[in-house]
């Protein structure tokens, strides 16, 4: 049994304590915006925030999260897709297939929360998620748009 606080709601789930947070979010809680890409902390598709920190949930056992810790998934990034990054993603048509984009947005939003005006180098250092469709330049442009950085 584990108690989790996800997007402001409490969930009691009955799972093996070794189960990765990713699969609890997807299968027990039923939020499928957080994706499985590799399962070994390589791709970032599974990124969620735990107390504001971007975490690769595929490699985080559910037992490592306390009920007090606030988990935010892509579904909880904003109530109505109004986060500046979500708006920028739509304005710039960032996604191609879209499969990696939940993870990209969660990493980018954690970056902007700490560093509201990141430099190009800071963006490159933070954004280590794989996008097989190759949307990187639009991701970078989207972050800058959301941060109000011109040029």
């Amino acid at each position, binding site marked *: 049994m584990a108690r989790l606080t996800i997007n402001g709601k409490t969930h009691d789930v009955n799972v093996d304590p070794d189960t990765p947070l990713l699969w609890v979010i997807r299968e027990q809680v039923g939020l499928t915006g957080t994706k499985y890409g*590799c399962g070994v902390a*390589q*791709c970032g598709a599974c990124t969620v925030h735990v107390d504001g920190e971007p975490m690769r949930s595929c490699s985080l056992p559910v037992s490592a999260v306390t009920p007090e810790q606030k988990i935010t998934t892509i579904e909880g990034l904003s109530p109505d*897709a109004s986060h500046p990054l979500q708006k920028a993603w739509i304005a710039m048509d960032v996604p191609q297939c879209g499969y990696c984009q939940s993870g990209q947005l969660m990493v980018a939003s954690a970056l902007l929360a700490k560093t509201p005006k990141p430099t190009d180098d800071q963006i490159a250092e933070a*954004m280590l998620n794989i996008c*097989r469709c190759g*949307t990187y330049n639009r991701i970078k442009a989207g972050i800058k748009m959301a941060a109000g950085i011109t040029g």
Partner: protein
Amino acid sequence: MTHLDTSRRRFMVGSAATLGGLSIGFHIPGGEAAAQTAGTPEINAWVVVKPDDTVVIRIARIDMGQGTVTGLAQLVAEELECDWAKVTTEYPTPGQNLARNRVWGNFQTAGSQGIRQSQDYVRKGGAAARMMLVEAAAKQWNVPAAECRVAKGVITHAASGRSTTYGKVADAAGKLEAPKEIPLKDPKTWTIAGKPMPRLDTADKVDGRKIFGADLVLPGMLNAAIKACPVFGGKLKGFDAAAVSGKPGIRKVVAVGDNAVAVIADTWWQAKTALDAVKIDWDNGPNADMSSEKTAAMLREGLEAKEAFVGNQAGDADAAIAAAAKKIEAVYSVPHQHHATMEPMNATARWATALDRVEVWCPTQNGESALATAAAASGLQPQQCEVYRIDLGGGFGRRATSHDYVRHAVLIAKEVPGTPVKLIWSREEDMLHGWYHPVTMCKLTGALDAQGNVTALKMRISGQSILAGVNPNALQNGRDPIAFQGLNPGGTEGRLGYAIPNLMIDHAMRNPAVPPGFWRGVNNNQNAIYLECFVDEMAHAAGQDALEFRRKMLGGSPKHLAVLNAVAEKGGWGKPAPAGVFRGLAQHMGYGSYVAACAEISVDAAGKLKVHRIVAATDCGHAVNPQQIAAQIEGSFVYGLSAALMQEITIKDGKVEQENFDSYPCMLLEDMPAVESIVMPSGDFWGGVGEPTIFVAAPAVLNAIFAATGKRIRDLPLNKHDLRKA
């Protein structure tokens, strides 16, 4: 024209009503098709207009990120003259296509053909629907249709001051005969097509709402994980499930066909962890000692073999080489690569409890093939099967080459009739059971005369044939015609641009037992690397500028030349580059389009490569959505350069050695160059855009690396080489 055959229209309504899956499917992908238009009669197969003026455009191809759905909708909407703000799309099912005598044509979305090979009939579908809507209004008003005007879905008759909307006359329009003559607009007058429209499918991709195949949840659904024999061609001897049977959530452990084991469980994580605990005994079979080294030896033998299939021949290359003032020779190689779609393979299947019907929900690049696979795997007739197509989390050819994952899902779900089972391959399973980019080598021999003109070129390709592996029926007397992509003597698909008087391009087919597949760009990728890098070698040997050297041979190929000139000019070829920065060029034609690139790179003292900027030009004939073409160009660089710089699938003991992204890395944002795209449609043909830029990605960068370091990288990937100055 069968696709506008209105007599078949009623079939749609009838079949939709009887599709069992759709009753639960109204809120799920695949069921959407019937949900959106259920109860609303169509104007024709392509267009449904609802009473509230919403226009539903049916799309036969599929979106895997490349924007085809938006592009095709633009083409239909353009001719339909509807309000773009009211356009939505839906996928008809392969079962419906079968029942309606393929009214929507080919569902295959591969070979960069989604738009170019259906543009004519989808535009006619839109135009015919517009004509029928106008005629319906004219009939109501009792005026000649020719006196009516239409804009943004509003039909007006100026003389009588009347107007109506598409939604109001749709019912009547659907009952009219389809027009026989369907004139199309001059693309120069387009207002929706040809414009950088935002994609129709972005909003769901930024808030987690979008449901991929791997996300699907059906009522009562179980989950499955699978392991197939890791050695190609190996079989299942037996398994011992004692360690997991009776554990919470575990329903069944089953053999799948003759070479795999699956666990069916309440959740996927339970299935996957249980599968890891099942003891499986494999018969590794005849390929147990296969290795990349053995493949390389086989290919090297092919480089010198007497027999080979000829792809392009002119004059007498051997004689011209013997008489050359200068002879140049080089051997190149490109390894296997994996598609590594971001979303692993998956499919959900449900058998009817009477075992007389199977439904499948899956990401697929060819729903008709998925349907055929479901039928073959189930032993049922195709009419007893249905496939609901779901947008792909990446395709890149993998989900066009094989529907092995559909076969698995159908076989597994048969164990629990009436219950849907979602099968997801783990990333490891996905890596081990790909359909890999074919492995090839190429020996090139060039002859120069005293003035440095190319008098002869021999290009011996040795290696794997994709068609021999996936569709041997398509071989022509044993010859694989697509082995010569981009090197062909003529045709509209991929013609060699260079005029070389004595030429011999041939292919010694050597097929290791690694499944080959259509991998974004396909054989164009290595063919362009081989030729464009070797042309650079010849230019260097001739002491000539790489651009001028190419120009001399492209006089008879103005479109090849135009894209090359465009990148050279914008890329600053011939002008000083920033300190430490070096440039490389490449051009190629494939999938009907002409592409060129000029890359700017630097290599630091430690030998680290940085790609700073790439200027890319594409002449795809018609540009339906220029901002999406730019996205495809950028994505192509990521896909092509990831492969050239760091990706290699190697085989040891008959098995793929790379099992996840830690050993199969991909380019990241930090590796990304600035990309400047030049979309320059010349207007008299239709070419593809999803793949072509890949062809020039690697050779432009490799040629720039030579300029920077004096090193010719001839076997890929690049990370095997030390780029430090010697």
